[in-house]
């Protein structure tokens, strides 16, 4: 199935979890916060939160700011 990851289309296996997606991207140990369809998904739910086709996933990391 296809999701939108940080604004780009991406193919992932059906009903993958947030956690699985992070592992696949080698970001599971990183400073990353996740939102799906504009809603924050806390780390405690990464293992259980399954993605659906068309989900808009945002992976945010620290960045310079003023």
């Amino acid at each position, binding site marked *: 199935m296809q999701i939108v990851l940080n604004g780009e289309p991406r193919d992932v296996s059906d009903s993958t979890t947030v956690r699985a997606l992070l592992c696949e*991207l080698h970001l599971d140990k990183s400073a990353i*916060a996740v939102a799906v369809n*504009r809603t924050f998904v806390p780390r405690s739910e990464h293992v259980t939160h399954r993605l659906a086709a068309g989900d808009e996933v945002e992976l945010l990391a620290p960045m*310079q700011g003023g």
Partner: protein
Amino acid sequence: MDDDTTTWSVGGKTLRSRMMIGSARYPSPDNMRQAIVASKASVVTVSLRRENPDTRAGQAFWSYVRELDVHVLPNTAGCHAVSEAVTTAKMAREIFETDWIKLELIGDDYTLQPDPFDLLEATTLLLAEGFIVFPYMTDDLVLAKRLVDVGCDILMPWAAPIGSGRGVVNPTALRLIRERFPEVKLLVDAGIGAPSHAARAMELGCDGVLLNTAIARAGDPVAMACAFADAIRAGRAAYTAGLMEPMEFAQASTPTVGMPLWHEPS
């Protein structure tokens, strides 16, 4: 008298320096790090952006910042709606492991002015979620009252529009907020262009100043960071020591008694 040995507290933390510093717009990450160290700031602002799994730029930046002995103040820069700001704040809390959030809600894309309506609403929501909100706001006294009424004990009025570097445009407004809310932590954010501006804000009784562009875009950001640190300490000391009153006309500093013959009015 000497800020180097005294501390103050804001948002549940005890700080040495009254300067807060941003992490954006420096010529290089190394320069950023040196400027932050030179500033002796206790608080550094950061943001959140999409991570590219290939470049992992965010991880690199974060490892830079984590090595510094500073508190992190995440912002919600770029948010235009209450829900955006709330989501961003929650994500920031998880990543940075802090309840602090510098709440920016933009009401105009050209001037990047804060939106007082969304700001009040988002502040109310985030306080209820246990956040410690640093609301970036105009210098409107009524907005300040509203924010304090919903339980906010930190206010971050601008000196002038973000990045304009014009200094404290309306000192009367800042002084009013200070007088009306002596217990609130009053931090000036945005619009400071020179150390004299920061000193002025502190002389008016502000508790701290957040700097970014004026340092990062200086000819020599590291030297400028030191300059701001000195100016902020100077302004605070002056506020505590008590400034002389300005007068419309002149007054001699040298005494006029005992003047020699030739000084006598002829």
